[in-house]
């Protein structure tokens, strides 16, 4: 379990106990209600990666999927940090580890049925996990099971000698209620894995691989009525869902509609005009809507502005001269005007200025500020000093990359161009297509080096709100591959050592401290320029009930929402 009792500043500025007003849905339930009925209208400015539980990786999707699927564990449907705590869902209780932490056993609740009335067994869960291992068919989902389960060469139930597709040795189902996971290496936080959508049961009979996403068989309170890929889908009540088997869900609305690929500004407008209830992507409104909301007290009262476990930062590429010199990297750290960075992300409402990688919302996070400056506007003198030490007293020229379809990253690049320009560091701005940013451009070390990408604007959100979930992927240099990286730049053995230490630390508190150490080491090596910890500005339409921000996903808890209208 990840949840610790450390400080959570979600309520900052929202401590007002009154039922309405800004941030009324942070840390508590706004407009609590048990009234059932109505239609919850949601929309998405983009498209889902997949509705298939074995093939999805977006946070909002994991939040939303709980409406139609039940994984072994789940983030509790509760406001604030309680929402980041794992609670058994399909399982009767948390996983029972073996002594060596390599075997985890779960008992499945009795009485849970698929939407066609068939009872759910542990074999369906095993099948679901097994098929999610097939990355040929399901490329989108996470690969934790592939990495941790003792696969012994198993690749896919579709290539299985067992006609039932249950030939995977790493999962055992001694009976219909029991499921046992066997790992290659010990892992204490396996419950997080058990909370992934991949553990949602999939009936083999209904599984047709890539087409399953068009007609996912539900175990949750809602089932699919209509799916139009890329356009919309509708959920209606699943009559085979039994409240008695499910302590976690209220299932208030009768129906949930989802529109895909809606123009983002339009979407905000429709939220504010009451034509729509939820923007499912959960990263907050667009700048235009933000400006509107902040200017209008009425709108502002109906908004929430929570901190999230997402960091916007810029990689400093040590492979590119002269940034291979730590002093030059430090010059960048000093020279950068972080207020400009913050403005690019929408000012105070868009995020808090970050001075290190680990967001404060992560349990145990500490403030580390190695490159302080007045008002965070950058310290020109210090930067020049560092440049001199680096042997580049007049500055140097390098490129800064960003994701083309992200205006905020563009604004960041422009802002850094200005503030680094003050000390003679000249930046040329290079946008690259968002979709291939990690695979073909910034995330491909060869490319970054040969294209002289000294700075690479990026952002990171944790799979889970803890040190491991946040830092491991972006700081461990041993993970760096030929392409498709998430760690673009941090290559420091000291950081790696710190990670190893944190990974093997058994004590929760000490582990948190150890991750803070990773954060500090990473900042010392100056491979990353932290920008802002994201704050989404969420608009909360009037007729929503039971609204609250969950720290599990840093957005509204979709499981709890109801409508009053």
């Amino acid at each position, binding site marked *: 379990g990840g949840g610790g009792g450390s400080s959570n500043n979600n309520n900052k500025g929202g401590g007002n106990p009154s039922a309405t007003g800004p941030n009324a849905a942070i840390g508590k339930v706004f407009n609590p209600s048990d009234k059932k009925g109505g239609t919850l209208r949601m*929309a998405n400015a983009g*498209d889902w990666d*997949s509705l298939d539980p074995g093939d999805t*990786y977006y946070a909002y999707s994991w939040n939303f999927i709980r409406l139609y699927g039940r994984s072994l564990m789940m983030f509790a449907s509760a406001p604030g940090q309680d929402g980041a705590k794992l609670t058994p869902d399909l399982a009767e209780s948390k996983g029972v580890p073996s002594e060596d932490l390599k075997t985890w056993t779960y008992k499945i609740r009795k009485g849970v049925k698929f939407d066609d009335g068939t009872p759910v067994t542990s074999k369906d869960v095993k099948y679901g996990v097994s*098929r999610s291992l*097939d*990355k*040929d*068919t*399901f*490329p*989108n*989902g*996470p*690969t934790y099971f592939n990495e941790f389960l003792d696969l012994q060469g198993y690749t*896919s*139930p*579709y290539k299985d000698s067992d006609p039932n*597709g249950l030939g995977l040795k790493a999962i055992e189902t001694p009976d219909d209620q029991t499921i046992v996971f066997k790992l290659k290496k010990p892992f204490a936080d396996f419950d997080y894995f058990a909370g992934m959508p991949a553990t949602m049961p999939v009936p083999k009979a209904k*599984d*047709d*691989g*890539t*087409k399953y*996403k068009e007609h996912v068989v539900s175990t949750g309170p809602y089932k699919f009525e209509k799916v*139009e*890929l*890329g*356009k919309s889908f509708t959920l209606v009540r699943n009559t085979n869902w039994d409240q008695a088997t499910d302590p976690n869900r209220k299932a208030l609305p009768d129906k949930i509609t989802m*529109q895909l*690929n*809606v*123009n983002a*500004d*339009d*979407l905000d*407008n*429709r939220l504010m*005009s009451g*034509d729509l209830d939820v923007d499912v992507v959960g990263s907050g409104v667009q700048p235009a809507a933000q400006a509107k909301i902040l200017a209008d007290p009425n709108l502002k009262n109906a908004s929430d502005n929570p901190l999230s476990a997402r960091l916007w930062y810029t990689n400093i590429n040590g492979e590119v001269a002269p940034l291979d010199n730590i002093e030059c990297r430090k010059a960048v750290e000093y020279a950068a005007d972080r207020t400009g960075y913050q403005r690019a992300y929408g000012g105070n409402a868009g995020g808090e200025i970050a001075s290190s990688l680990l967001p404060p919302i992560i349990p145990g996070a500490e403030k580390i500020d190695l490159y302080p400056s007045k008002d965070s506007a950058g310290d020109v003198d210090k930067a020049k000093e560092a440049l001199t030490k680096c042997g580049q007293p007049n500055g140097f020229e390098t490129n800064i990359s960003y994701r083309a*379809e992200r205006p905020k990253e563009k604004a960041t690049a422009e802002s850094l161009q200005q503030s680094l320009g003050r000390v003679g560091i000249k930046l040329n701005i290079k946008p690259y*297509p*968002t*979709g*291939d940013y*990690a*695979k*073909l451009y910034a995330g*491909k070390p060869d490319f970054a080096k040969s294209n002289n990408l000294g700075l690479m604007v990026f952002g990171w959100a944790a799979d889970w709100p803890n040190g491991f979930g946040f830092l491991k992927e972006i700081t461990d240099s041993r993970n760096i*591959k*030929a*392409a*498709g990286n*998430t760690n673009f730049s941090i290559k420091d053995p000291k950081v790696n050592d710190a990670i190893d230490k944190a990974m093997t630390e058994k004590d929760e508190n000490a582990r948190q401290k150890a991750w803070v150490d990773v954060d500090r080491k990473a900042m010392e090596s100056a491979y990353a320029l932290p920008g802002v910890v994201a704050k989404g500005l969420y608009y909360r339409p009037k007729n929503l009930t039971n609204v609250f921000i969950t720290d599990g996903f840093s957005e509204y808890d979709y499981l709890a929402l109801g409508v009053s209208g």
Partner: protein
Amino acid sequence: MFAYIIRRLIGAVILLFVVSLVTFSIFFLVPRIAGASVEDMASRYVGKTADAETIRQMAEKLGFTDPLLTQYGRFISAIFVGADYSTGPTTVHCPAPCLGYSFITQNPVWPDLVDRMGVTISLAVGAAVIWLLLGISTGVLSALRRGTVFDRAAMGVALAGVSLPIFFTGLLSLTIFSYGLGWAVPGGTYVNFADDPLAWAGALILPWVTLAFLNAAGYARLTRATMLETMNEDFIRTARAKGLNERTVVVKHGLRSVLTPIITIFGLDLGILLGGAVLTESAYSLPGLGAYAINAIVNNDLPKVLGVTLVGATFIIIANLVVDLLYAVVDPRVKYS
């Protein structure tokens, strides 16, 4: 005439081949030339965290390692005889015309296209009707009142239409008429005509008008110019000499001649629009071919790009053919052998 149509159709097929080949090359060859490896291209089709081996396998599975012509051949053969794709547990047959199978969204492209076509056709045809009415009538009036305040004003307004990009006028119209005055429904609320004709029209009225506003100017100007020219023709003098009243002269004799040039550009415009009104669809969140195409391009989803390109090209070719045939209807002097 029949032979002519057949010949044109054969020509059209050849044209489509060329179009598809060039599209194929642009989206396939150009990145290769620009330095992307087969693995780079395949890496788009695997998950975020795939390792090199997975990528290599994917490249093989997608056939990226085959010579380009083999790949193109596969694409073409799929159109005629269909193709089989693995969905995991089974393989599905994508029946002809199978315009490819997207490995990113894991579904065949053709049904998508058919689905999107409805939206685009609704948008294009509706707008076309409006701009034709608007453009031609303005043009005629302007021509008849050449040099008057009306003429200047009408042409000025018409030019305003072409002078502003549609992503701009689109948003403006939404702000004013939808969010401001509440007269029109907001963007992204498209429903099929069959489901609810009223809602369908409601969702489309703003895009129709905006798109029509953009295009009407061209038609108004063309009509005006042709009309001015036509009204100098001898046959107009003859019509007057017969004692016809001015209205009949203008409408029956003058306007009739305007049809030919109008049809020419109309065919082209409509053909292009039917291939996807990219900006309009994106401004109004309409799930049409244009939006689909943009999405496909942004995601580098080659089969979708190819599919949508071919559909667009087909529309243009059909439109051109229809235009040429219409000439013969409108102008009895035109004969095709």
